[in-house]
């Protein structure tokens, strides 16, 4: 058997080797390169077009109100006086509350899932968290009105008032719909994405890191803190930024629980308003040109804030990683 098939196999091998040595056609590579470049550029063009359309749609309002649009607080569709400051404030504060709640929870969950959880518990827990992301935001909003707000109003809010009533953040009457309720609902909405990404990042930390820490006699907590969390710092920061992006743009559920009152109040028990909410609320019934343009400008501001916060994050990440490496080198 061997004697007859051996030379045949050798001949085939030689042939394929020759084929491999022949200069291959580069067409596929080139096409692939151009295609991916096109797709990538397409995304950039999309963002630019979006910004351009928002700019075009709001040019009248931009010209009329100028910089005052960003610094005044009156939103009066009847008198056509428009100022976006309370909406900007509401968007930033509610997102900040959401991050304060969601980030520690998400990272702790991710750390538990990758470092500590027994195998049989991991997959069910991961599926549950991912299911949280699948809940439509309008359902979450209704749940917010009928379940979360009455509960918050009866138990956690009075407790917060009793404990921290001496700060300006937890004063005044408690009605339920409030900036804090808005922040909490956003926190619930960004939890799954921040957790999933954090988990992926922690999973990609090489085992060598953990083993090295254990070899030095680290406890489990020390190993997780020094070898895993610290190593994955930049990636986790990225996950937080993605969460922030979602938080800034969250609309429906927030609209249903934040109280929709354009005001700037220190107390988190007072109702607020976000940029995305005012667009969702008022766009369909805006009949005059200036009103519609002002809403477009709100969109432009939201677009700007999202881009700006991402740029700032990139910058922060850059400085963080450079100081980290220089320190490492030293």
């Amino acid at each position: 058997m061997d004697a007859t098939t051996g030379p045949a196999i050798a001949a085939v091998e030689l042939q394929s080797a020759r084929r491999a040595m022949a200069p291959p056609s580069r067409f596929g590579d080139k096409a692939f390169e151009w295609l991916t470049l096109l797709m990538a550029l397409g995304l950039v063009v999309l963002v630019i077009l979006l910004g351009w359309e928002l700019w075009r749609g709001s040019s009248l309002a931009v010209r009329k109100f100028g910089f005052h649009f960003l610094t005044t607080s009156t939103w009066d569709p009847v008198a056509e006086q428009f100022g976006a400051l309370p909406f900007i404030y509401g968007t930033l504060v509610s997102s900040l509350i959401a991050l304060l709640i969601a980030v520690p929870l998400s990272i702790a969950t991710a750390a538990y899932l990758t470092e500590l959880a027994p195998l049989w518990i991991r997959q069910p827990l991961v599926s549950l968290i991912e299911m949280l992301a699948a809940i439509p935001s309008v359902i979450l909003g209704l749940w917010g009105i009928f379940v979360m707000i009455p509960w918050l109003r009866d138990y956690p809010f009075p407790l917060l008032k009793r404990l921290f009533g001496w700060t300006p953040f937890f004063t005044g009457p408690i009605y339920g719909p409030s900036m804090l309720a808005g922040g909490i609902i956003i926190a619930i909405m960004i939890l799954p994405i921040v957790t999933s990404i954090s988990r992926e990042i922690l999973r990609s930390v090489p085992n060598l890191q953990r083993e090295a820490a254990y070899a030095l006699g680290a406890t489990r907590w020390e190993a997780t803190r020094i070898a895993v969390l610290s190593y994955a710092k930049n990636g986790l920061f990225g996950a937080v930024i993605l969460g922030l992006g979602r938080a800034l743009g969250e609309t429906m559920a927030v609209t249903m629980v934040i109280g929709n009152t354009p005001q700037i109040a220190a107390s988190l028990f007072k109702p607020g308003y976000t940029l995305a909410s005012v667009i969702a609320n008022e766009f369909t019934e805006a009949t005059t040109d200036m009103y519609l343009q002002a809403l477009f400008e709100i969109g432009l501001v939201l677009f700007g804030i999202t881009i700006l916060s991402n740029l700032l994050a990139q910058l922060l990440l850059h400085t963080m990683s450079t100081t980290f490496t220089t320190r490492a080198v030293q």
Partner: protein
Amino acid sequence: MKSLRSARKIFTAVLLAGISATASAQMMINGAGATFPYPIYSKWFDEYAKVDPSVRFNYQSIGSGGGQKQILAQTVDFGASDGPMSDDNLAKAPGKLLHIPTVAGADVVAYNLPGNPALKFDAETVAGIFLGQIKKWNDPKITTLNPGITLADQDIVVVHRSDGSGTTYIWTDYLSKISPEWKAKVGTNTSVNWPTGIGGKGNEGVAGQIKQTPGALGYVELIYAVQNKMPYAGVKNSAGNFMKPSIESITAALATADIPDDFRFSITNAPGADAYPIAGATWLLVYQQQKDAAKGKKLVEFLKWAAKDGEKMAKDLQYAPMPDNLQQRVLKRIDEIKI
């Protein structure tokens, strides 16, 4: 490979045949606008399909603002709006736009108090509450109107719509008519700069907020209060009677309000003795000169059917139909549409 190609050919043929079949058999009339009358409009379109199977209606309830914009841009065959169009917007129309009133509804004053007492309000009190001047339930202005009902020293949590809506238009139109201060400070619109209160999104949002907040008071459409079994107040009308909102008291408002020839009317604070004061109509918007003769003819036929037979379905869906005197005027207006 060959079978795949022939399958594709068959598929294309079937698709083309399907498109051409529907195009020749049925005419599509497109409309867009108000959300408030959407339930009755969709009922009408369904029923009308039995009357005239050759037309189909495609109605997008995108809001009154969108309805006005689309009919101005002539991207739809008819628009729909919960408020009459402004002079500015009418001036932008490429032809003469007709307002055809279809049905009316009411805003009710709903509240959340222990024991659900039946309360009464007058214009001054409602305006005072929404201007943020009456802050407590035991304010003398409320208690003198409601003798025998004990009201606690409790904050009134005002709830209003946060989204632009015809409901808000009716509400602010009423407040502007009865309170000079409201007119000067706030005015009439689908959304306004509220002096006080928290905003709920949609009727369901406001209804939910009221039901969940002790001491809350707000306005919702009649049908939402009925469906959610919320208590709602009687309101003193301009004749001095306290009226509960109902289909009869809304139609009474329609019958007694002063209605101008262009049908851009408001029926808030109507003079009738039995009229509920916080009511409003909704309109279809059509061009007097129809561009497409065949479509125009079908549209006119439908409008006539709606004004005559469609109106009879209104009550079942908690809308008030047009009273007889107004119905005759509407039919005359539909006759003026040129094809």
